[in-house]
């Protein structure tokens, strides 16, 4: 006899269901981060491009890369090798060890087609072999060519860019890092109703040296940090995990210090317990107040992804999907209410997608995507700009690793704050009769054209008649993208704007990860369908 899902879900719920020495050993290793001006990269790159030109390539680049990463996860005071709750941790393996990877990738256009090859053996002989291999791949691909790759022009640069940072995380003693995590879990565990407390931090240092046949020599030294804590509580079989996620940032160790994991521990623990005892939210149309910590993922899924030009023209049809946005929608599609203003920005200090140059050698910039609710711009790179009739790239090419081929990845996509004097969070709450206040990210799913999304969150509070009443659970909402943003009724003022970075975002084949940030102020969205997942 067929089992009934609603009965099952109901039943499942009811059943209740040091040292303080600096890491001196690391300092010299970290200092080995190659510097292009003193290393062989410049001459090796020049030789590689000369070889590619001799082989008949119309374009070539070589990207040397070194990536050092470290992740520490603590569970109930114990350093563990188990994974944390974030998306990616920049590829680091938890446990406090160091991952160090070094290599290069060569990309060429021959016969109008791309070829790419990479290797971890960084020698002049190997570079010659890989240039030949990338060229051979491109030549072989030409048999199935239907059109030539067209690249937007780019100026030549000879520059160095480094993430502004105060303290290199790889020069901070292990004990200091661990202490900040164990103190946080100890504080969470003071709440005896908490089953598990976790704290984590990930660091990454990416060094790149890009040489292109357009004449560029671009060296970049990028620092990343992400961190957070969680508390898990179980009450009568209802298990809930509350997370505190300052997010991820291009920054040094100071990001972890400023995140103050310990300072948020007591609240996180209490909210985990309260959530485990919370009653389900009632289903129906409700007004939602979404905090920036939650909006980051919504912006990511239903604004940032659908405005990637490669998706719009079909490059991702076999995996990440296409987009409901069409090229003809530019300057005609009303994406949302007049309060919706969105821009792309690879220059915002601290944002995860901030770099000096993209992996095509295009300088970072900021440009509008949605103005007063109207779609006005898209994310482009050298390869795709021509599809929308633009003659310059917006600089959105990125490869996750020296091993990977570069392609179009989203920059930071930010929802602009309301004007000074816009409604504050408290004023928004006072203006809601029946609604939910949502914090943090949780369940999220979206169709392949970014039209129908279902989002959860990490913590939810019921709002009745202008007041927050209690915590609720089993919350999801459904968003049809343009309808959802049309119902945007308030955007918080500039002082409430904050950005949230992500240390993972999958796209491409083979799949690569990207690190964008999405900033916003709290937003009030009217009449959103809540609770369909559980009803």
């Amino acid at each position, binding site marked *: 006899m067929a*089992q009934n899902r609603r009965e099952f879900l109901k039943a499942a719920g009811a059943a209740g269901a040091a040292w303080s020495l600096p890491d001196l050993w690391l300092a010299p290793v970290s200092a080995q981060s190659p510097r292009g001006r003193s290393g062989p990269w410049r001459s090796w790159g020049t030789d590689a491009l000369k070889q590619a030109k001799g082989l008949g390539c119309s374009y070539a680049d070589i990207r040397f890369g070194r990536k050092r990463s470290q992740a520490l996860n603590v569970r109930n005071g114990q350093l563990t090798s188990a994974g944390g709750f974030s998306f990616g941790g920049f590829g680091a393996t938890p446990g406090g060890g160091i991952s160090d990877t070094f290599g290069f990738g060569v990309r060429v256009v021959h016969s109008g087609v791309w070829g790419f090859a990479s290797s971890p053996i960084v020698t002049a002989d190997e570079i010659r072999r890989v240039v030949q291999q990338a060229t051979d791949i491109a030549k072989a691909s030409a048999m199935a060519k239907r059109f030539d790759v067209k690249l937007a022009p780019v100026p030549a640069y000879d520059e160095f860019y480094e993430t502004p940072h105060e303290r290199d995380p790889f020069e901070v003693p292990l004990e200091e890092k661990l202490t900040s995590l164990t103190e946080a879990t100890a504080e969470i565990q003071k709440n005896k109703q908490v089953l598990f407390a976790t704290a984590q931090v990930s660091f990454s240092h990416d060094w790149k040296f890009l040489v292109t046949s357009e004449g560029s020599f671009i060296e970049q030294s990028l620092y990343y940090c992400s961190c957070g804590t969680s508390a898990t509580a179980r009450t009568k079989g209802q298990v809930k995990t509350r997370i505190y996620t300052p997010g991820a940032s291009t920054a040094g160790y100071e990001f972890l210090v400023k995140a103050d994991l310990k300072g948020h521990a007591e609240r996180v623990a209490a909210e985990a317990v309260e959530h485990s005892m919370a009653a389900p939210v009632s289903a129906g149309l409700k007004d939602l107040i979404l905090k920036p910590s939650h909006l980051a993922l919504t912006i990511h899924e239903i604004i940032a992804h659908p405005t990637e030009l490669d998706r719009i023209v079909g490059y991702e049809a076999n995996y990440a999907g296409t987009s409901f946005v069409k090229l003809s929608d530019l300057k005609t599609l009303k994406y949302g209410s007049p309060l919706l203003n969105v821009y792309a920005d690879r220059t915002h200090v601290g944002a995860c997608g901030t770099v000096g140059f993209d992996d095509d050698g295009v300088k970072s910039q900021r440009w509008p995507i949605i103005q007063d609710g109207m779609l006005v711009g898209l994310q482009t790179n050298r390869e795709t700009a021509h599809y929308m009739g633009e003659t310059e790239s917006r600089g959105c090419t990125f490869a996750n690793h020296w*091993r990977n081929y570069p392609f179009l990845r989203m920059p930071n996509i930010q929802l602009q704050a309301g004007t000074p004097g816009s409604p504050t969070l408290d004023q928004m709450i006072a203006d809601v009769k029946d609604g939910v206040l949502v914090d943090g990210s949780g369940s999220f799913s979206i*169709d*392949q054209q970014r*039209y129908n999304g*279902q989002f959860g969150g990490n913590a939810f509070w019921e709002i009745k008649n202008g007041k927050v009443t209690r915590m609720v659970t089993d919350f999801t909402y459904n968003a049809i993208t343009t309808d959802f943003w049309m119902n945007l009724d308030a955007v918080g003022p500039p002082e409430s704007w904050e950005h949230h970075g992500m240390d993972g975002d*999958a796209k491409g084949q083979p799949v690569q990860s990207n690190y964008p940030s999405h900033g916003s102020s709290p937003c009030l969205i009217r009449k959103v369908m809540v609770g369909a997942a559980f009803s």
Partner: protein
Amino acid sequence: MSYSREEVKAITDKILNMAKADAVEVDFQGGERSATRYANSSITANLIEHDQQVNITVYYGQKSASTVTHQFDDASLKTAIDEAQILAKRKPDNPETMPLVKPPQNYLPVDAVIDRTANFGPAERAAMVKKSLDICEKKGVVGAGYIPKLHWTTATANSEGLFSYFRYAEASFILTCRTPDGTGSGWAGQTGLKDVNLIDPTSITERAAEKALKSQKPRAIEPGDYTVILESRPAARFLSLLLGSMDARSAEEGRSFMSGAERGQTKIGQKLFGDNVTIKSVMNHPTLRQTPIGEDGLAAQDVTWIEKGVVKNLYYSRYWAQKTGKAPTATQPGLSLVMDGGTTSVEEMIKTTKRGLLVSFFWYMRPVEAMSILYTGMTRDGLFLIENGEITAPVQNFRWNETPVVGLNNISALGPPEPMHTGEAYDQPGTAMIPPMRIEDFTMTSVSPAV
């Protein structure tokens, strides 16, 4: 790029000799990942990635630390070993530290490399693309596909004298065809094949193109509970939702669907699924080619996870097994997975369905509620309404909210298993033998006009 047993052993031996610690473990991996990707009926990426790495773990009592390096010259190895040694000494004791696995381990022989798959190159992939695109052009559809090849070696060695080595090669062909007006989309593919000669680009392209053409201009129908016929790809994705709950530790710690009534208890022995649900890990399966090497170098064994709906085993890691007095499982739940099938073809399922949906693909499945394994996801690339035993119309995609706990109780027909990847992407091992299945009362909660 290929790594022989001797080459790998020379590298791991060198590291084991260089490291000074109570115990040392080295995990090696390396090889070639290649792929050809095409879209808009032209190749958009064609690549060969060569990579290699060792993960070096040193132990001092209960202290340990790991470092990873991709450079195998003496200086780089020494730096990595030094870093691991210094880090380990400065770390606190880890009470979950396990002693090294000792030899001998009796690894089941797995025939995992066929030379023509290992040597499958960019020109051969481009020829497949051309063959596929020519068919797309004739059918009037636009092709977007992915042909990955992985030729990879993994090895584990430790200072107890253990050395395990496994090399495999596999290839896949995955294709989405869309109509030029964007109103129809269809998917077809073969994944994780040991023998590249089994890839049939013609058949895959014809199936994907046919689906794209037949799915044009879908109409919206009401959400609700439907009989669904899942082809092997969505069936594999749906089944994968269960795998994360098969971990004994999370069950005994009271934080998973498999948790028992009291802390420390599990649902092993309980009948939770339909009689027709039997799921095993089968080493050296004639079609699959996954590793016979388990956690820390333990020899993986056949495991029956669910038999006729009854939970028979959960996964016990080495540490959790020791703590609870059980034997370690060695074989992780997603490894060489085989679900028993039936004899009903998809065509026969359609013929015997009064009203239902034929599903080609599930997309973007994400957890909604962990304790009930409630997930949400979308249909994609071909959804068809079945009425009175026939496909009568393409319909707009649905968002669903469902749990495999319910779905695997409601299977009313099973087809013959076929190899299909269980993961969202196709880049890691994860191909399983999965039957197409018909599930009653599958909950569709909203419609999407996305094509």
